[in-house]
């Protein structure tokens, strides 16, 4: 993935477009008649421009609605459309060709639990914000990487502390992160101790899965027992990818860790930016080209073909029988397709014949990464179309007959129409976003 953190403008809009969009629309309803706020707002805007990308402790009190701008008529439509357009353009920038991504992922979440996390520059504290975002991150991560596993390690009082074992169950991981009192920050952090601990817990993993460490680091110091560069070399050798989200400032060693292992490094400027750089790490990383430099003849040692079985699920109402894994008498369960043994839960290896049993929806959850929907083209002019369709092909919303007068930026159709390059059906802006972000399947061509 391209490092986006260099592009400051990009970041600002990035702050989770859905949410900000919803917020804007609500403000449109409520903010009517609040003329008083406008002049104050202008003053603020000048200030914000003077020092762009201010760190959160440098910035004055900001309001989220300052980021949108009214047009002459006092409407926010333009600003909303602009936000949408940016989202569209970002999609267009993404490479269309299939890139290889690792989908079976193993991640160790390294949380900084040092005294530096009690700083209040991010509200309410760095620690509370980190826990909140980490929980959201885990939920989103498992949604997109259903076959992955997450372990949690804390850095506190100079040692690495195992908070949770590797687990593929989001509920388990959330439980590790839910108990605030057990994670109370104290002392100095130790990068080396914690990385060593994470590394040792991942050493047994099969070669076809990815090994990743994500460090959320709030401190500016690390107290290590040995040479951290040795640890770094060991990580490179073990193909562990380290990404760091720093909450304070850039540290040379953190930057080195990421660069050498192929991870991403980011410094959070404020709360929204923190979330953005954290969530950029959710989609599976494109596999590094390094892995296949052996020439066209050499096979990739990291890749393998696995035999998997897709089970049949028995309902609670079926006659009870003993399960193969615990010898318990129960009605529900899954039948191994090869030996017809009953196991309690999937994914697992069949205890009788050793076949890997997975539920196929688990696999299918990641297929939209492989076959993305082609970006729709914005319809720029209605000339040459004798009988244009009157309504959105997907949701039957009626298109406006007149073109919008707003300054049309790139990627926005003045007619509010977006056309699929394959089936040539027109869709409204909302469906365009919905199809590409949620459904991943064009309603017109069914692909």
């Amino acid at each position, binding site marked *: 993935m391209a490092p986006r953190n260099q592009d400051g403008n990009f970041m600002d809009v990035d702050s989770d477009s859905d949410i900000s969009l919803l917020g804007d629309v609500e403000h449109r309803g409520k903010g009517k008649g609040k003329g008083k706020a406008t002049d104050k707002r202008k003053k603020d805007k000048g200030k914000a421009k003077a020092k762009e990308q201010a760190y959160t402790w440098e910035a004055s009190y900001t309001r989220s609605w300052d980021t949108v701008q009214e047009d002459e008529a006092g409407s926010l439509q333009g600003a909303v459309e602009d936000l949408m357009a940016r989202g569209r353009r970002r999609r267009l920038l993404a490479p269309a060709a299939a890139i290889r991504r690792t989908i079976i992922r193993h991640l160790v979440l390294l949380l900084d639990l040092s005294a530096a996390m009690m700083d209040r520059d991010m509200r309410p504290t760095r620690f509370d914000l980190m826990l909140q975002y980490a929980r959201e991150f885990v939920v989103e991560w498992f949604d997109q990487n259903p076959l992955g596993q997450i372990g949690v390690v804390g850095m506190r009082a100079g040692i690495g502390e195992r908070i949770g074992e590797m687990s593929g169950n989001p509920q388990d991981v959330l439980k590790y992160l839910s108990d605030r009192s057990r994670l109370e920050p104290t002392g100095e952090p130790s990068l080396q101790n914690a990385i060593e601990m994470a590394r040792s817990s991942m050493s047994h993993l099969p070669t076809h899965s990815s090994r990743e460490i994500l460090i959320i680091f709030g401190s500016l110091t690390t107290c290590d027992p040995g040479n951290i560069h040795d640890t770094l070399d060991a990580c490179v050798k073990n193909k562990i990818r380290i990404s760091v989200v720093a909450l304070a400032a850039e540290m040379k060693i953190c930057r080195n860790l990421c660069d050498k292992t192929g991870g991403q490094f980011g410094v959070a400027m404020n709360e929204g930016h923190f979330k953005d750089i954290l969530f950029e790490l959710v989609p599976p990383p494109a596999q590094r080209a390094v892995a296949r430099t052996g020439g066209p003849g050499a*096979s990739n040692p990291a890749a393998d073909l696995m*035999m998997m079985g897709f089970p049949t699920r028995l309902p609670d109402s*079926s006659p009870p029988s003993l399960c193969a894994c615990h010898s318990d008498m129960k009605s529900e369960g899954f039948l191994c397709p090869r030996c017809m043994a009953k196991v309690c839960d999937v994914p697992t290896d069949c205890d009788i014949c050793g076949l890997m049993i997975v539920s*196929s929806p688990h*696999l*299918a959850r990641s297929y939209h990464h492989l076959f993305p929907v082609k970006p729709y083209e914005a319809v720029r002019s209605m000339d040459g179309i004798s009988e244009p369709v009157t309504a959105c092909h997907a*949701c039957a919303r009626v298109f406006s007959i007149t073109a919008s007068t707003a300054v049309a930026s790139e990627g926005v159709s003045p007619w509010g129409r977006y056309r699929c390059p394959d089936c040539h059906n027109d869709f409204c802006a909302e469906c365009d976003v919905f*199809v590409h972000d949620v459904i991943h399947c064009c*309603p017109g061509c069914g692909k």
Partner: protein
Amino acid sequence: MEKASHLSVIVDLSPTQWHLSAQASNQYPLSIETFLSQLLAFLNAHIASKHENTLVVFGALPGKSVMLYSSTELLTDDMPPLDANSYLPFKLVDSTVVRKIMDELDAIGKLEEEPPCALVGAVTKALCYINRITHHSSTTTGVAEDPTTLHDPRILILSVSPDLSSSYIPIMNAIFSAQKLKVTIDVCKVYGPDTVFLQQAAHLTDGSYIYLERRDALLQNLIMSFLSPPFIRKILAVPKQDKIDFRAACFCHKNIVDVGFVCSVCLSIFCQPLPVCSTCRTKFPINTLKRLNAARPAITPANSRMGVPLANLNNAATPRSTSTPVPNGMSNLR
């Protein structure tokens, strides 16, 4: 207090399948006319059960999907003539749906080969529509009402066609987005063999999948099982499906397989060991191939679970499958 609910009905209108369904050799023949009259009674019951209830009907036709009726949009200009003996909303639904279906079926004309029904298109359209109305209500009704619970949306699929295995990925994508939108998908299999994908759809979205055994009792099944919105179903004992088949379609020949070979990089499923992944171009080690080829199960008819293999009846009609040659190794699979 009971809330208004939204229902999207997707009707599978494959002419071939309906023709087969109406044949007298079936135990309970069901023609499309009888089906439609019972369906319309069900639609009317949904509208009648609460005034604010919304209804959309989509039709999955060969090669395309159309919106047949929407309670928020006027699809045809001509209003039916007023009749003192009929309730206007009922009359409106009935006449619009029937007229649109007639128009669409007439438009099909004579085809040499019937393309498969665009069920995926209909489902994604239903989802787009639900996305639109839930989004819409959140912007207009204000903060007091929670937009996601306001409409309690659900989709009912009335299916007659067998599984179309080439649409495996899109249909799974649609199911996952339904999960995200908290839309319940109910499936009523009116005719034909069980469909694996729709079973999974109902299971994953907490809906019910009902295989209609007594097809003369269609209306009764519809009203008893599908009329109540999901939150009432917690109280009622709505029939659920018994077994759920978690099989998937392979990427290479679009076969539905229960033991497949999966690429560790991109999780593509294949029905036989391949030297190179066709999706991500990963080369697999030669020893693995040898090992897997040796370990491949010799499939006997007893091993195929359904007795009748769920081979793609429809696939023969898709031009795509004819272009991919089926290697000899596959023939003993079936």
